[in-house]
């Protein structure tokens, strides 16, 4: 299993990770090598096996719909790197370059 630089760019873009050229080249080699090790799973025939996404059997966990205090707005917005009048301030949402086709 070998990844190309284009594969790495695509995945980095999906993950919203800004990487340098050097990082992408290193990751191409390291991820290819790790995926090589992971091929061992293909030795197993799992066609008849159902997947386990988590080990304890829980269905929907319900609770009474009662009102309880939550964190105060001013506490939460004060954690933001930039806030304004009790809101979280962010740069422009539209207009960014996004090769995946949707900002």
């Amino acid at each position, binding site marked *: 299993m070998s990844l190309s630089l284009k594969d790495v760019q695509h995945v980095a873009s999906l993950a919203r*990770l*800004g990487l340098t050229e050097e990082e992408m080249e290193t990751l191409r080699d390291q991820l290819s090598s790790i995926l090589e090790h992971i091929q061992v799973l293909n030795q197993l025939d*799992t066609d008849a096996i159902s997947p386990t*996404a988590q*080990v304890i059997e829980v269905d929907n966990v319900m609770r009474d719909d009662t009102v309880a205090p939550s964190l105060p707005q001013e506490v939460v917005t004060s954690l933001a*790197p930039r806030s304004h009048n009790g809101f979280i301030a962010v740069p422009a949402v539209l207009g960014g370059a996004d090769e995946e086709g949707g900002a």
Partner: protein
Amino acid sequence: MSELTRITASEARQLLESRAISSAELTEAHLERIRAVDGKVHGYLHVMEEVAREQARAADEARADGTAGPLTGIPVALKDILCTTDAPTTAASKILEGYTSPYDATVVRKLREAGCVFLGKTNTDEFAMGSSTENSAFGPTRNPWNLDTVPGGSSGGSAAVVAAHEAPLSLGSDTGGSIRQPAGFCGVVGLKPTYGRVSRFGLIAFASSLDQIGPFSRTVADTALILNTIAGRDPADSTSVDVEVPDYTAGLPYDLKGKRIGIAREYTVDGMEKGVSEAVDQAIRTLADLGAELVDVSLPHTEYALATYYITAPAEASANLARFDGIKYGNRKEESTLQETYLRTRGEGFGAEVKRRIMLGTYALSSGYYDAYYVKAQKVRTLIKRDFDEAFEKVDAIVAPTSPTVAFGIGSRTDDPYQMYLADVFTIPANMAGIPGISVPCGLSDGLPVGLQFLGKPFDEQGVLSVAHAYEQATDWHTKSPTGLD
């Protein structure tokens, strides 16, 4: 070293109850020990000196008022991936440098309500991703037994501070061995409870189907003591399970006579260190001498656990770490657009191993690869869990080495990610199956501790604690401490 830092938490409890010592004295002795040795060990990222003194004062008042409980006045260190309102929580990442949580993790709240004294936040691999604590953005922790070697990881800080007598108790988290493996490397006791036994609320999530919080201590009895307080269902964590929490301390005395202990041949691998095999073989003979019946069991899918883990954990991590985008909290590298801000914030805020796992996980979940990697890994996970289900029909517990080697040199495995991943080959299967596991010291190889691991049935923490306690009481490895720090 002060006698007050030499004693165990259970001994401190007795001395506090008999008024022979105060929590203030106990706390000052630990703060002094931290000042004396943590410059070498670097187990703490943040020492909570003022908070600890205030909690110690309150604990001594509670003692005088007659409202003290078993843990009142006992110092505890917390892995810096557990949210605390009165100290920063960074997950050892630059992206959270300076962040303080507006709420406590449930385990932190429970210890606070029990009257514990918080000594500080301990070092970890960034976002708990690693096996050596070398991935911390704030510098590595060193193994108190040999400062040129790693303490293991990711909870290396929590293991090292207990080994160095900078705390009698600490909490860590275990996703693929991150409590048991550093406990083994540092010669202390480390327990990963069953998935669902301890609330994960307020634990910064790495891999949500695998993560579990657990304690470090220098004796099994101390681990039982703190588990009594942190275990149990929590409405804030829907995956915490409503299974009765027994008094683990009361249940410790245990006769190994006639108990069936499983030995799996799959827990011997190429490249296993001779000193480790010898120490583990000796420990197994001790179990037999104590009357345990040794039973061969087979866990045939063990060799696939590492590959299963390195799909599952990064896949879950890539989703969990999407929240660190510099918008609502943490550090932001602001650019003119939101998209550019995300890229730069995450590109500069995360370290190399975190980026590697986000990339691997994103790839495994991406269109065209999801079935081949993620779904395949979840199917193999079913096979790994079945192996344990079948083995536990025949035995009460399974004994195995905690790791194939003792602590390795700082920098010796950082160039090859897969070599680093192999350090967790014996601890990962328990996370994939969700079962409890404990590591206890069982020997020294070249002067470095060897860990012995006991694995048990889901929610049978009492079983693994009791077997480990019986072994510990028959040996003296738990009384050994590193000597090079003083």
